[in-house]
């Protein structure tokens, strides 16, 4: 269950990675890759009306 998703930048550029925080506060680093099932879950989560936070 996804709690939040945030873009991760490195050196000012999007690092092709999202910081995924689950409801149990476990954090995972998810690549922007269509064949990654966690990324697929993020897309489904966004389709439900949720928003990915911009990088700090």
């Amino acid at each position, binding site marked *: 269950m996804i709690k939040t998703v945030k873009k*991760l930048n*490195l050196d000012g550029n999007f*690092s*092709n*990675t999202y*910081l*995924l925080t689950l409801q149990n506060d*476990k*954090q*995972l*680093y*998810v*690549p922007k*890759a269509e*064949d*990654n*099932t*966690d990324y697929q879950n993020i897309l489904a989560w966004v389709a439900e009306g949720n928003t990915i936070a911009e990088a700090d």
Partner: protein
Amino acid sequence: MALSKIDVANMLTGATPVANGGTALTSGFVNGKDPRPSASPLIINGDAAVAQRGTSFTSVSSGSNFPVDRFEFYPTNLGAYTIIQEALTSGEAYNNGFRTALRIDTTTADASPASSDYAILRTKLEGQDLQLFKKGTSNAEKFTLAFWVKSNKTTTGQVNLFDIDNNRLVSGTYATSSANTWEKKVINFPADTTGAFDNDNALSLIVEFFLDGGSNFTSGTAPTAWEAQSNGDRNANNFAIGSSTDNDFAITGVQLEVGEFSSTTLPPFEHESFGNNLQRCQRYFYLNNTVSASMPFASGVVSGTTNSRAVMRHPQPMRAPPTMGRSGNADFKVFCGSTNVDSTNVAFYYPNNYQALLYVDVSSGLTNGQGVVIIDDGGGNAYIQGSAEL
């Protein structure tokens, strides 16, 4: 051993000669030909030998859980379970060369699950590994699934082949005829001339042992021919593992073969070396955990004075760019020069099939450009994992 008699007739026809007047093979490598068109077992870790995530999990009641690699137990609002990699020491599965099994024990029962509740044990396969079934063509092949199973329950269970690409389903049933006794099951599934498996690295087929479910999954009839998937057909023969805390289910020796085989013609289970099995599992998941305090994970370089970067190579090229995870920030240190510096944040960037950039922040104490080694902090709890599960 010298041959006292050679079957010349067989040699002339190209068939396997029968030495010493012995009996020719009627299963397995008949006439010297491996009946399998595939080089490796299609089911990875079918002998439950690899359990990277751990060998015992208690109070399992939801979500994705892997008691052994490649086999996912997924309960949803239907009881609680202890799931383990069981070490075998006796019984027919043991006598046939299996030393480990996947075991599920019900610890909290739910004898009256709600309609949408379920408990499934499944393994998932990539489409590019299934092309030899020629599914969706006029030459489509049959499927044979074999496994060893043991349960306290004497009942009938259902196992499904679920074609995700085309949303099609076929099922087979098996009986646990004798309580607490290992039994080998061989189940044939028909060929399907409709719906090809995609030839890619995505999920195409789920081998689904439906162990319990509410009426949404039990209302239909187990399909013996491929059909458009209907949830009500997926558990028409309810094993009902969650119905009592007396219940358990253990399985090993899972093999999927191209073609139709009986219990006498089935090719033998392909026992891989542990190393080969582990490598194949690591295409989907790996755990790099601390086996000793201060163990190194990766080497890199200081960039600035408060952070360092290192390339974290995966042990195997992975199915897809993996999701990276780790233990707590405080479990890691940065070794630089002659000092260890506590990490304040550990992150991963740019993960791809082969590697990821490991980025570790510290509060101070690093020198720009120096080499570093990212290590366990001495507590022995640090780990890094990558997951590209289907």
